[in-house]
């Protein structure tokens, strides 16, 4: 069997490197530097040390007892990435890539951000390592994640609003790629999800796979067996890839990725790439893309900035086609309900992204037996969303 991905970064027909020529040599250099670093015991030790003493890993698995009782079916377990430093799984990748950037002699890092969690994570890691940091963020996302914009600035990062296209994550990635192509000699681009040209989808998945490796051992210890179902929300797909990667070889564990169903099923009203998209090339990689018949990328909508993106990581496209992972959609309304549900039943306010995964669990857990277990990746906490949820619900703070 051919290894996945292959040496050109292809997961079956998905992935690859579709970027301007200027970035090709830097991508090759990045691939080589990363391959070397991951084989270097000192690098691995330093990363593991930082994950433990700075990021707060391992994160626990919590048994959601009241939620389980309320849903009346499978036992619900939560992998608590919300307890990571900065409040989401994004720090795992940010620390890994910034460590690599320092090793490569880069003095400046840039990042795109949607929900602001990746931007905050990179600003944090940059402060930790003394790197200059600039974060691109769509102006619509700046509005709905204002708290994170200020956090990034507190951390010493420069935040640049992107007022083009849909003013969301997609446009922030466009601007980051333009910056990188211009400043590639001094700058490392810390991509925040399993997206973009090779080696990013593979490298980000590997930095995030710590979630799955921990969870596999923890759930065995706490539940005495593997879960029947693992659920994660899928924006670009990094928290999902991080937890799924450990369970993919265990064929009897069902894996479900949850996309943003938004407010309707028409193109432009959602970010359901697997329901409404088709194969295409965006941001350097071939994957499922929401686009019109002329190959123009369509606008998307989700209540959650982190899921509001028209493409998806190429490995997810591969998992989708090979049917190893199923992808489902959860609408804005359902996600908002789940936001309240988890807050009230478990005392955990989830990120709106994560609330999509919780909503799916609320849908399926009641149909499962109480001896069965569902493991959800609780990718982040919802502090950043409190103001926006209040606004959506007509509450003035």
């Amino acid at each position, binding site marked *: 069997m051919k290894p996945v991905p292959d040496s050109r970064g292809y997961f079956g027909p998905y992935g690859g490197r*579709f*970027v301007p*020529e*200027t970035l090709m040599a830097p991508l090759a250099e990045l691939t080589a530097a990363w391959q070397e670093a991951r084989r270097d015991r000192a690098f691995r030790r330093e990363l593991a040390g930082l994950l433990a003493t700075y990021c707060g890993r391992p994160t626990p698995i919590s048994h959601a007892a009241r939620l389980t009782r309320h849903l009346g079916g499978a036992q619900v377990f939560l992998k608590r990435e919300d307890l990571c430093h900065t409040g989401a799984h994004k720090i795992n990748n940010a620390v890994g890539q910034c460590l690599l950037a320092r090793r490569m002699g880069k003095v400046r890092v840039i990042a795109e951000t949607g929900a602001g969690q990746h931007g905050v994570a990179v600003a944090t890691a940059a402060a930790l390592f003394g790197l200059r940091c600039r974060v691109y963020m769509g102006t619509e996302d700046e509005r709905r994640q204002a708290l994170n914009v200020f956090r990034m600035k507190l951390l010493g990062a420069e935040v640049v609003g992107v007022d083009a296209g849909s003013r969301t994550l997609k446009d922030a990635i466009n601007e980051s790629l333009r910056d990188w192509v211009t400043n590639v000699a001094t700058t490392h681009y810390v991509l925040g999800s399993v997206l973009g040209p090779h080696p990013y989808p593979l490298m980000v998945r590997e930095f995030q796979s710590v979630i799955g490796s921990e969870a596999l051992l923890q759930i065995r210890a706490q539940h005495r067996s593997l879960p029947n179902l693992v659920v994660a929300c899928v924006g670009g797909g990094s928290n999902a890839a991080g937890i799924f990667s450990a369970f993919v070889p265990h064929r009897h564990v069902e894996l479900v990725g949850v996309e943003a169903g938004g407010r309707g099923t028409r193109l432009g009203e959602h970010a359901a790439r697997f329901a409404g998209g088709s194969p295409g*090339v965006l941001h350097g990689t071939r994957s499922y893309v929401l686009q019109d018949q002329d*190959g123009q990328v369509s606008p998307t909508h989700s209540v959650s900035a982190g899921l509001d993106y028209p493409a998806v990581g190429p490995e997810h496209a591969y998992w989708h086609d090979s049917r190893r992972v199923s992808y489902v959609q959860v609408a804005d309304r359902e996600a908002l309900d789940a936001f309240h549900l988890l807050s009230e039943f478990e005392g955990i306010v989830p990120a709106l992204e994560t609330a999509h995964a919780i909503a799916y669990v609320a849908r399926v857990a009641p149909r499962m037996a109480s001896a069965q277990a569902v493991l959800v990746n609780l990718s982040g906490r919802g502090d950043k969303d409190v103001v926006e949820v209040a606004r959506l619900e007509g509450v003035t703070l």
Partner: protein
Amino acid sequence: MSGRIDKAFARAGKAKRAAFIAYITAGDPAPARTVVLARALERAGADILELGVPFTDPIADGPTNQRAAERALAQGTSLPGVLGIVRELRYSSELPVVLFTYFNPVHAYGLARFAVDAAAAGVDGVLFTDVPVEEAGAAHAALRRVGVELVLLLAPTSTRERVKAVRKLAGSFVYFVARAGVTGARATLEEGLEEQVRLVRRLTKTRVAVGFGVSTPDQVARAARFADGVVVGSALVERIAELGDAPELPGEIEALARSLAIATRRK
């Protein structure tokens, strides 16, 4: 067919000029104006027309071309429309046309069908901004079958191995990105550009056109001394943006293009 590009370079070379390659975005300010603008550029002395296919996410372009793509998309111009524009141009002009496009519109159109339709429309070459040589095999094969050239890019960051890989697929010229970065006007030309262009020409044994950031007659004149072709885009696109659909647009573009075309003469 691809002979037109070759002939254009040969004609310019014989006249002791670098070929003048003029870029505009198809459909900007309106689809109906593109043929008129192309004819104006031809009258001004353009040897090759580089026609941008508007795309929603132009990661290789600076603000000037991004705005142009937005205007063209707002006018409903997409790849099928661009092929229609070239077809129409061919009634009145033999100006060689190179499409400057992102891959996704072509991917959605279907590579094989695109190649056939592009050739039938009278397209001479296709340049993909985001398809490096490693990914270019299928496009090269599809275009070759119908006699359309694949135009490959090289950049200051390209390694020797990459330059050599490009040589294997290159047509009558390669496009050298004058500076690491996106399209757009810049104050100066990069130092060391001349040596880089000479090296690329030697390694690829192909003509080299220089573009990205060349926008004034002065910059054109300097690049023309050592490059086989000089591409000017943003300067023209900026002027189109300023004038919009004004009646004087073609005349103004012709005048601007003429000042650039004259600068391609080697003294």
